[in-house]
C-alpha cells in the first residue's frame, strides 16, 4: 500500500530551516527498511503556476491553486503494509522535519 506523506509548512510560523541533515538520515533509514519510494522538497508557492485548459483556451495563472497560510512544502511517497506503520513513520517524520505532515493513501 502506498501513502503520500505531505509536508505542511506555515507561512506565519515556519518550521526551522536546519533540518536537512536529519531528513537525509531519516531517508537513509526509510530506504534501508524498505519504505522509501520517492521524496522531494518543493520550491516556494510563488514559483507555482496553475494551468486550466478545460475551456477553449489554456489559462495560466500565477501562484498556487489555493492561497492559504499553510502550504505544501514537500512530499514523501512510502510503501507500507498498513496505516499503523505509516502513522508511526509519519510521527517520526514530523519531528525530523519540524513540520506537520499529512498521511494519505493512494487508491
Amino acid at each position, binding site marked *: 500500500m502506498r501513502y503520500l506523506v505531505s509536508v505542511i509548512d506555515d507561512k506565519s510560523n515556519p518550521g526551522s530551516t536546519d533540518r536537512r541533515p536529519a531528513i537525509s538520515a531519516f531517508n537513509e533509514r526509510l530506504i534501508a527498511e524498505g519504505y522509501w519510494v520517492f521524496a522531494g522538497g518543493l520550491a516556494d508557492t510563488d514559483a507555482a503556476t496553475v494551468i486550466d485548459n478545460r475551456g477553449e483556451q489554456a489559462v495560466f495563472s500565477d501562484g498556487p491553486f489555493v492561497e492559504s497560510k499553510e502550504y505544501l512544502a514537500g512530499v514523501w511517497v512510502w510503501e507500507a*503494509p*498498513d496505516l499503523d506503520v505509516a502513522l508511526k513513520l509519519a510521527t517520526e517524520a514530523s519531528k525530523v522535519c519540524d513540520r506537520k505532515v499529512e*498521511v494519505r493513501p493512494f487508491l
Partner: protein
Amino acid sequence: MSDVEEAITRAHHDEWARVVAALTRRFGDLDIAEEAAAEAFATAVERWPANGVPPNPGAWLTTTASRKAIDRIRRENKRDDKHREAQMTYDDPPEPVGVIDDDRLRLIFICCHPALATEARVALTLRMVGGLTVPEIARAFLVQGTTMEQRITRAKAKIKAARIPYRMPSADDLPTRVSGVLAVLFLVFNEGYLASGPDTDPVRHDLTTEAIRLTRLIRALLPRDGEVAGLLALMLLTEARRTARISANGELVALDEQDRGAWDAELIAEGHRLVRERLAAAAAGVAPGRYQILAAINAVHTSARDIRDTDWSQVLALYDQLVRLDPSPIIALNRAIAVAELDGPEVALAIIDRLAEALAGYHAYHATRADLLRRLGRSQQSRAAYERAIELAGNTGETAYLTRRRDQLQ
C-alpha cells in the same frame, strides 16, 4: 417476553461483537461483517421460535452469518481478491481456542483508532461492538439518523481506504491505544449519566448499561490494566447512585440530599473491590491513572452512610493527586468543592474565581459558584450565577434542580 425472545436478546447482547469480530477477521471487511451479522440475527428471529434455540447460539449465529457473507460476496461478484476467494471456498476454518476474544479486542481497537474522529469512534464502537442500531446511536447523541449513518459510513470507508489494520496494537502502542478506547467508553457512559438535550430523560440507562457492559468486556480481555479496572470501578460506583440521583418528578438530587439507602449495594461492593485491588497495586508502587483516582474518590463518597460522615480530607488528598496528573480547570473546580467542605465556602470561592475565564461556558462552574455564594448569604450574586448555570445546563434534571435552588433564594 417469551423464552425464545429472551434467548435472542441475550444472544444479541453476548454474541453480536463476537460474530462481527469473527467475520471481520475472516472477510477483512467491516461492512460485510456487520451486514451479515444483522442478517444472521434476523434469521434467528424468524427460525428460533419455530425450530427452537440452537444448543450453541454463538456458533449458530457465526456460521449463519458466514454463509450470508459468502452469499453476499458471490452476489456482488467481489471475486477480485484471490485470498478472499480462497477463504470463501471453505466453510468455517478451525479456530484456535481463545482467538475469539482477541478478535473482539481487535475490533474495538479498529473502532477506536486514533486516525478516526472522536465522534466516529464513539459511533462505530456502539454499532460494531455494542450492536446498537444507527437510529439508536443517533438518538443518543442528538443527531439526525442520516448524519450518524454518514459518520459511520465515512469511518468504515476510511478504515478500508487508508488500510487501518485489524490487529492488536504493538506493545509500545498499547497503553495509548487503550486510553483512547477508555475515553470512548467514558464518553458513552457520561452521555448516559448526564444526558444532554431538552427532550431527553435526565439519565439514559441504556447508555450507562452499554458503557459498563463494554468496559466489563475490556476488563475481561485486559485484566491486568489498572486504568481499565479504574474506569469500571468509577462507572459502577457512579451507576450505583443512579436511581437516588433523580427524584420522582425528574429533578436531579444532589449528593447531600440523596437517599443513600436507595444506592445499589451490589454495584458498590463490586466497585469497592476493584478500588481495593488498585490500592494494593498502588501500595506496591504502580502509580494510579486518572480513572483509578476518580474511582477512589467515588469509593470515599459511597463509603459514607451519611454526607456528614464523608472523609473530605481523603477526597481532597485524592484531588491533589489528580491535579498533579491532570491540571485541567475542571479538576480544579471539583477539588474546590472538597475545599469548601474542609475550609469553608469563602476559601473555595477564591479558588474557583481564578477559573472564571477558563470555565465561563461550563454550567457546573456557575452551579458550583451559585451554591458557594448561597452558603455565604450573597443571594443576589448567587441568583445571577444560578441563572447562568440554567442557561448553560443541557440536562433536564439538572435544569429543574438549579431552577428550584434559584427560586429558594431569599
